[in-house]
């Protein structure tokens, strides 16, 4: 190994990163999303998707769902750093593979083409609760809800069938059963 000239140590052992979903309850106030997102970018954490909206208008609470990747140590840090932010009330996190949690994304597909192609698209989407939101003789807007990778797959599959535009949300999450996040 060449002699290091750095005043800092050299990174060594790397653990394997995993995908985690964070759910964060925050005061719905100006700048709160910037604080959360700034924490991720400032500390070099990754954001794969992000969904945020107010969930309680009376208490003025928004719920942010963030999909991220990191080693267990990094995930711990993300949770602890998020908890330190003043407008943050509660933080929950779980692994993507967690069976106890539902994890969904929504996508809108605009397909332009002949009727039979649009039919084929709808057929392909059958597993993912397709809803036709708009329809003309030569186009359709199809809504599906599915997992991220399923939407990725559909996106590829529909391209040759006339898909010209995709719009998708970040993932949102909810626990199964009567339980809620801690």
């Amino acid at each position, binding site marked *: 190994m060449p002699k*290091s*000239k750095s005043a*800092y140590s050299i990174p060594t052992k790397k653990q394997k990163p995993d995908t985690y979903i964070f759910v964060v309850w925050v005061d719905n106030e100006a*700048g709160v999303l910037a604080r959360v997102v700034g924490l991720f970018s*400032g500390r070099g954490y990754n954001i794969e998707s992000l969904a945020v909206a107010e969930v309680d208008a009376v208490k003025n609470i928004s719920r942010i769902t963030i999909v991220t990747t990191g080693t267990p*140590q990094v995930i711990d840090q993300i949770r602890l750093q998020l908890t330190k*932010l*003043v407008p943050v*009330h509660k933080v929950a996190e779980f692994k993507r593979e967690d069976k106890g949690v539902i994890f969904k994304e929504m996508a809108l597909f605009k397909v332009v083409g002949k009727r039979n192609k649009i039919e084929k698209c709808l057929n392909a989407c059958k597993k993912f609760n397709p809803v036709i939101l708009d329809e003309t003789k030569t186009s359709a807007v199809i809504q599906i809800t599915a997992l991220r990778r399923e939407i990725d797959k559909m996106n590829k599959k529909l391209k040759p069938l006339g898909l010209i535009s995709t719009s998708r949300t970040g993932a949102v999450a909810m626990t199964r059963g009567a339980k809620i996040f801690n």
Partner: protein
Amino acid sequence: MPKLLTGAEIVFKCLEDQKVEHIFGYPGGAVLPIYDELKNHPSIKHILVRHEQGAGHAAEGYARSSGKPGVVLVTSGPGATNVVTALTDAYMDSVPLVCISGQVPTHLIGTDAFQECDTTGITRPCTKHNWLVKDINDLSKVMHEAFRVATTGRPGPVLIDIPKDVQFAKAKYKKPNKEKKLNGKSHNKFSQDQIDELVKLLSKAKKPIIYSGGGVINSGPKASQALREFVELTGFPITSTLQGLGAYPGDDNQFLGMLGMHGTYEANNAMHDCDLLINIGARFDDRITGKIDEFSPNSTKVHIDIDPSSINKIIKVDLAIVGDVTNVISKINKTISKRKNGHSKSNKSSIAKWWEQIGKWREKDSLNFVNSDESIKPQHAVQRLYELTKNKDTYVTTEVGQHQMWAAQHYKFNKPNRWMTSGGLGTMGYGLPAAVGVQIAHPEKLVIDIAGEASVLMTMQEMSTAVQYNLPIKIFILNNQYMGMVRQWQELLHEKNYSESYSEALPDFMKMAEAYGCKGIKADSPAELDDKIREMIDYDGPVIFDCHVDPNENCFPMIPSGKPHNQMILGPNDQEENKIKGKGKALV
């Protein structure tokens, strides 16, 4: 109907209710209403600095030496951007600051108005929290909340951005809320079980070490008291980080000196070889740990910290106790005292061998240096300064670089809050304005800034502040004409390519002192050093002391980059020995 107050009046009402006595600031267009109100509040004294960065560092010095939050008042735009370095510095070193900045009127926000900047955006990553107050009715609540956030948990800086129209607008004033809304952020939830577990570890340890940090200082003087009892009860050796110096007496036999990159041989070797490591209020900074994989490889690690995010951030620990250091250590002491019988007998004898080993490391005398009759060695200068001021309850600030490390190594602190240095951010130019703030908090005490000539030039303008308020701060410059630490790294790691680290055109510090209206003293030879230092101490007023030192001196011992604690480079005596034996520089 209660009286309506203007925003500016509310600001001062809040400051009065928060018992603020001093604010450090610089006026400008967007804070003029607040400055206009200043005259009506005689209990609050404003210290006019010469640059907003100086205001921030002065407030840091004030806060760190007094335990009270420092308050800064600046204008919008450049006023706010100038204070960013100080805010970041305070964030890294956990110093409670409340910064109030003016902002352009609300209707002009976002229009690129004159002296407008996105202050809350810029300062978001370098404050614990910040607020843009757009509604006058929120102002008193936000002001009180700001003081609470800055001073509770792990302390840190906060910023309140107040648009000019809000400073003019009127509202009712609300007193601070007595009940504390913690928002799930109370960090004092440790249990007796954890304490018991720790006490069990203490009694089993054969090679223990206590590693204490700035958290002990931040927790208040009681924490230092508790720490001293703890060390006495256990008989364990203790080492300290740069920020923790003074929490435990520097001249005590159980104290191994500072650890880390420029720590002592005994402290670093003890950290490496120990079987129980107790971190109290420190954060495993990279200047401390060296190579992570080989950091204290065989020890059980305990971490006591008020900030849960400090735990397991860098080093995985076996037992974490989240809480205020004062509470945790007092609890530990009580628990130990209760069981004293079994413990004090067995343990002190079982660590006798460990102390023997530490004694052997100590014999290396790793802080040694080759003194000279011709030129002043910087280490010698600090040692003389220490000897001549140690009986005076002296407050010391520093800039950043070699002089800072020499000060940490050779100046021994016996009380907390006497040592103010920029550790986390490493801000050159910190020491002089910090000394201003310390002197404001302690007008009767001796305050010395141990400085380097390069650092001190970064904030030299604050001498003018010191002269204006007749603050008798002593700027003790170890002048080696180099950015010494840069030069040292270049010598050791970049084949002596001293790229841009030599200052070609230094000012004449004697004339500079004269120009500022303070006293200048110059020392060139070791023979005159003591007399000159005495002259500095005896002078009632600010002094710039230009101490010409050997420009080629390096700061040893040193852990080279990427090396563990037990592979230090020692000083010239040792290097000489090793050359003869052909062992090379790095000692294993």
